[in-house]
C-alpha cells in the first residue's frame, strides 16, 4: 500500500505514504513510536495517528504521524492528508517490484500537489527478507538521489534503521523560526521544538 508519513515541524506535518497494503508502513510507525513490532498495542488513535518526540541536536522534535489509506480508490483523497505537512515517508516492499513502481507514482503526485519544501523519505521495508529481494539497493539509491529524497532500507520486524529513518527526517526539516511559531506554546516548554509528522498511505 502506498505509504506516506507526514512530519510536522511544529506547524507542519510529516506523512508516510506507501502504495500497497502489506508493505509495512504501519509497522514502521509502530516500531518507531513504541519500539515494538506489534502495532496492535498503540496509543491515541489506534494505528492511524501517532506521536513521538525525538531529540535532535539541542532540540526536541515532536512527530505527529498521520497514516493514510493505501487503497487505490482512496488515492485521490491523499492531498487532504498531506496539506501542511513538513515531511512524507513513502514505504515500499523490497520484495515487491510493483510496490516500488507505485512509490514512484506517489512521489510524482507529491511533487505536483504536495506542499513546497516537503521533505521526502523513501523506506524500503522488509530488508530482513533480502533473500527474496526484487528491488535492488542501487535502484532505490539512484532514484532517491534523482528526487533528492532520503533513502533507507528498514526492517520493522527486526527494528533495523527505523530510528535512523526518522532521525534523518529530523535533520532535514529546517529549524524552527521561533519568532514565527512562537504562538504554539510548545516553545515555551524549555525551548524544545516539536515536529509534527503525518503519515498517509
Amino acid at each position, binding site marked *: *500500500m502506498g505509504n506516506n508519513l507526514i512530519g*510536522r515541524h511544529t*506547524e*507542519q*506535518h510529516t506523512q508516510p505514504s506507501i502504495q500497497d*497494503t502489506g508493505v509495512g*508502513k*504501519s509497522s514502521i510507525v509502530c516500531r518507531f513510536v513504541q519500539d515494538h513490532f506489534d*502495532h*496492535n*498495542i*498503540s496509543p*491515541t*488513535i*489506534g*494505528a*492511524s*495517528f501517532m506521536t513521538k518526540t525525538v531529540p535532535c541536536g539541542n532540540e526536541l522534535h515532536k512527530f*505527529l504521524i*498521520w*497514516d*493514510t*489509506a*493505501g*487503497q487505490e*480508490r*482512496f488515492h*485521490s*483523497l491523499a492531498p*487532504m*492528508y498531506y496539506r*501542511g505537512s513538513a515531511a512524507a515517508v513513502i514505504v515500499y516492499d523490497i520484495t515487491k517490484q510493483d510496490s516500488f513502481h507505485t512509490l514512484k507514482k506517489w512521489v510524482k503526485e507529491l511533487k505536483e500537489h504536495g506542499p513546497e519544501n516537503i521533505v521526502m523519505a523513501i523506506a524500503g521495508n522488509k530488508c530482513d527478507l533480502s533473500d527474496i529481494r526484487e528491488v535492488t539497493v542501487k535502484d532505490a539509491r539512484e532514484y532517491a538521489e534523482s528526487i533528492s529524497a532520503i533513502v533507507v532500507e528498514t526492517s520493522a520486524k527486526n527494528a533495523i534503521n527505523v530510528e535512523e529513518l526518522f532521525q534523518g527526517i529530523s535533520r532535514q526539516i529546517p529549524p524552527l523560526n521561533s519568532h514565527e511559531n*512562537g*504562538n*504554539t*506554546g510548545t516553545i*515555551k516548554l524549555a525551548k524544545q521544538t516539536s515536529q*509534527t509528522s*503525518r*503519515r*498517509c*498511505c
Partner: protein
Amino acid sequence: MANSNSSALSRRSACRHKRNSNPVKPLRRTMDVSGLKGVCQVAVRSLLSTEETFLSALARINDIVLQPLLRTDQDDQKGKEHMKSLLLLSDRYHAVWDRTEENYKTLKRKYSTSEYSLTLHDIYIILKKDLFLDVYTQYFTCFTNYVVIQGFDRAAKQMSGYWKTNKKMVKQLLAPSVSEPTTAITLHTVLHETIRNQIQQYALILTRLNENAEEIDEKNLVSDALNLYVKLQNFIGQSLDEASLTKILWGSLGSKLVSSLCVPERRLQEDSKYVPVSISTGKFERVLLFDDLLILLQGTDFRSFDLKLVWVDPAPTENSTAASHSLRIITPEEEFLLSSKEPHHKAIWQWKLNQVIRQRLDGKRDFPLWGKSEEGLDPCASRFSTYTFRSECRFKNAVYEGDFSWGKPHGKGTLKWPDGHNYVGDFKEGLEDGFGICLIPHSSEDGYDCYKCHWREGKMQGYGICEYSNETVYKGYFKDNLRHGFGIQESPISSKHPFKYTGHWDRDKKMGYGIWDDIESGQRYIGMWQNDQRHGAGVVVMQSGACYQGTFLMDKITGMGILISEDESVFEGKFTEQLKLDGKGKLTFSDRFTLEGNFISKAGKDLQTRGVLNANSKEQDYDVTRKPQLGLTEFPVEKRWQGIYDPFFEFISSGCREETEESFLGIHVQSSKELRKSQEYLFCQRDSEEISGKIEDVLEALYEYQDLKSLQCYLQKALNSSQHPFAKLLKSLSTVFQATYAGIGANRHLLHMAQEEVKYHAWKTWEFYRNITHVATKQKGQLPDTEEDTEGSEKENSYTLILPVILPRFHPELFMLYMLYHEKEDALYWQGIVHLGLFSDTKLLEFLEVQKNLWPLKDLRLTTNQRHSLVRERCFLSATECLQKIITTVDPREKLGILLKTHEEIETTVSRVMEKEYKLPMDDLLPLLVYVVSRARIQRLGAEIHLIRDLMDPKNEGGIYDFMLTAIESCYEHIQKEEIRLYHFP
C-alpha cells in the same frame, strides 16, 4: 356674603349672652383636701373660676368690639380684603371661645356631681394642651395678619363715630393704664390682651400644680403642659413684635412697593436699616429679609428672591478683605455679596438668613418663632423647587422644576421651554448631565424628536436613542449632540424609501464602515462611507444572490469592479450605475468559458460585445474564481467594528464606574425573559444562580471566577442577563453580524469575511475580559497578574474560553454562509448518501471493501436474513449514533470530541468482533469511517466540517483532532465521487 355671615354670628352671640347671664352656683368648698386629689381639686377650682371670668370677658368683647367691626360695610377692594382677614379673625376668636366653654362646662358638671373623683386627667388644659395650643396659635396668626395690613387703623378711622359714642364701654374692657391710647391701639389691645392673659392664668395654675405633684409620671405630665404654655407665650410675644415691625415697615414704604409686596402673612425678619450691610451688585441700597423673600431695594425699584432658591455661602474666596465681612448670596441666575463692616453684623445676617431659609424650606415657622436657635441647623443645600430662567442663555424662558443645589439645577428635574422643547432627567451643576429624555418640537412637521440619551455638561454624549418625528429611529452613540461613533438608524417600513443603516457616524454624517439596506430595491451595501455618501471600497449584494465589489466615489460606482452573478458568472471591468459592464471587460462563465472584449450596454438593450471567447481556461484559474471572497482586504477585520469596541474599552479605562456604564455600554433594557422572571419572583424564591449585571457585582464575580472553567460557566450565564457588559457587547456584535450577513447578506462570497469577523470578536472579547479583570483585581487592592501571557496562549484562550460561549450568537448566519458556500458539494454528497442508503449493511461493507474479518458478524453459516439482522444490530450502530450527535452542538471543540468518540466506538466494535484489542490502521479505518458516515446521514456535512476546521483552535492543527477531521472530510469527499453516486450494483 360678609353680611349674612355677620348676622349669623350675632344671633349666636345673642343666645350665648343669655346663657352666660344665668347666675352661677357658688362653688362648694371642702376642707378635707389631701394628696394629689386635693391638689387636683384646688387646681380645678381655680381653673373653673378663671375660665368663668374669661368667658364673660370674651362675650363682652364680642358684643362691644368684634360684632360692630364685622358690621361695617366694605366697598373697595382693599376693604374686602380687610373684611376677609377680619372674618378669619372672628372665626378663630370663636374657636377659642367655643373650645374653652365646651371644656369648662364638662368639667363643671363633673365637679358638681363627683367632686372627689377628679383626677389630673380632668384638667383639660393638660390633657388637651395640643388642642388649646392649636386654637391659640391660629388666633394669633390671624390677629397679627390683621395687624400687618393695618386693619385696626382703618377700622378706627372708618368707625370713628361708633367708637366715640361707646368710648366708655370699650375702655372698660381694658386694664387700667395711665396713658390715653388711640382708638386703633385700644382695639388692638382689647382683641389680644385678654386672650393672651388667659395663657398666663393657665401657666400659673400649672405651676402650682407642678409644685404640689408628687408622682414622677404626673409631674412630667404637668410640666410638659406647662412648658408648652410658656412657649406659647413666647410665640405670642414674638408674633406681635414681628407684626408691629412689619406694619411699621409697610407704613414707611411707598404705596407702589407696599401694594406689590404686602401680603397679610409676610413678616419682616431683618432689615439692613437696623443691621447694616451693603450689596455688591447694582445700585441697590437696602436689603429686606422676609420670611419668604429676600428683597433688594432702591427707591421704588426692587428685586426679590424666593428664599427657597437662596443659598448663603459664608466664606467667599474673593473680595474677602479684613475690612469687609461678606456673605455670598447665591440664587439661580444671580450672585452677589452682602458686606458689612462689623463681623457681628455679618454673623447676624448669616444666622437669620439660614434660619429663615430653613423655615421656608420646611414650609412652617419654628415654634416659638426662633425656637431652634442652636447651631448646626443650616438649611439643606439640595432643594426641590420651580424656577423660570430669565437671562439670555440657552435656558431663557424655560421653566425648571426639580432639584437645586447652590443655585443650580442639580439632581433630577424637568426643564420646559415655551416652544414645547423640554428635557426630563438628570442635572449636574446647572447643566443636563446623566440620563435624560429630551423632546424637541419639529417646526415643519407636527411632531417631536425624542432623545433618550446620556448627557454630559449640557450635551448629548455617549449612548442614546432618538426617535425622530418622521418615525426614523437612531440607536447609538452621540458626541456633542451629534450622532458620532457607532449607531443604527432605521426608518419605518411604511416610509417612502425604507432603509436601515448600521455603521459608523462622524458628526451626524455616515462615515467609515457601514451597512446600508435599501429595503425597496432589496440591495445591501457593505462598505465605506463619507459625508453620508457611499465613498471608497464597497460591496453590493442583491436579493438575487448576485454581488458586486468595486469603488464608489460620492455615491457613484467608479473604476474597475467585479460582478458575480447568481449563476456564478464573473464579470470584471468597468460598470455603469445599473451594474452593466461598460467598456473593456472580461466575462468568466460558470462553465469556465471566458469572453474578453469591449462591452457596450445601452438602456433597454442586451449587452453587446466584440471579443474573444476562450473555452480552454486552466482549471486552476477556475478554482480561484469559483467562489471568490469579497471584502477581505478592503475591510480589515480589526477596523470593521471599531465603533462598537471603542466605548467598551473606554469604559474600562475610565475605571468602570457604575454611573457611566450606560453611556458607554448602552441603556439597560430588560429582556422579555427577564421581565417574565421578575414577575415569577412574586410567587417563588429568587434563583440564587441569577447573574447580576451591576458593575460592582460583575467585577466581584470576575475576581472570584479567575479559574477558566468556572469563568466559562459565569460568562455563559452572563450572556443571558441583558445588563451584563458581556451581554451588551455580544448583543451589539451579533446585531451588526446579522445586519451584514443575514437576509440579503447570506451570500457565499461573504463567508470568509464573516468567519474572520467571528474569530476576531472572540479575540476582542477575550481582550475585553482581560482588561476588565485587571480593573477588578486593582479594585481589590492587588497588583494585576504579572504572568507573562504570550500572544499565543492569549489566542488560545479566545478559542477555548470565549469562542464556544459566543459562537451560538453568530452560528445561524455563519452556518448559513457555510451551507451556501458548500451547496454544490453538499448536494453531490447527499446524492452519494442516498445512493449508499440503498445498500444493505452487508452489501455496503462488501462494496467498501471492508476486510471480512472486521465485519461485526462471526458466523457465516447463518442465513442471509439472520445475518442482516445481526449486522444491523451490531454493525457500528453505536458509532453511527455517536457521529449523529455532531449536530447537537455548535461548539467546534465538542464536535471534534464527538469525532474522536466515533472512532473509539468503531474500534470498540472491531475489538469485540476480533475478540482482542485491535488498533485500526488507516487502510482499515477509512472504509469503516465511510460506512459510518454514510449511515449517519448528516445533512450539510461539508458545511459542518469546514465550520469546524475554520473555527478550530489552531493549536490542534496537525494533531489528533485535525487528523480525525481530515479523515471525516476525506469520507465526505469520497462519497461525492461519481463511482459512489452512480454505482450500479450487480
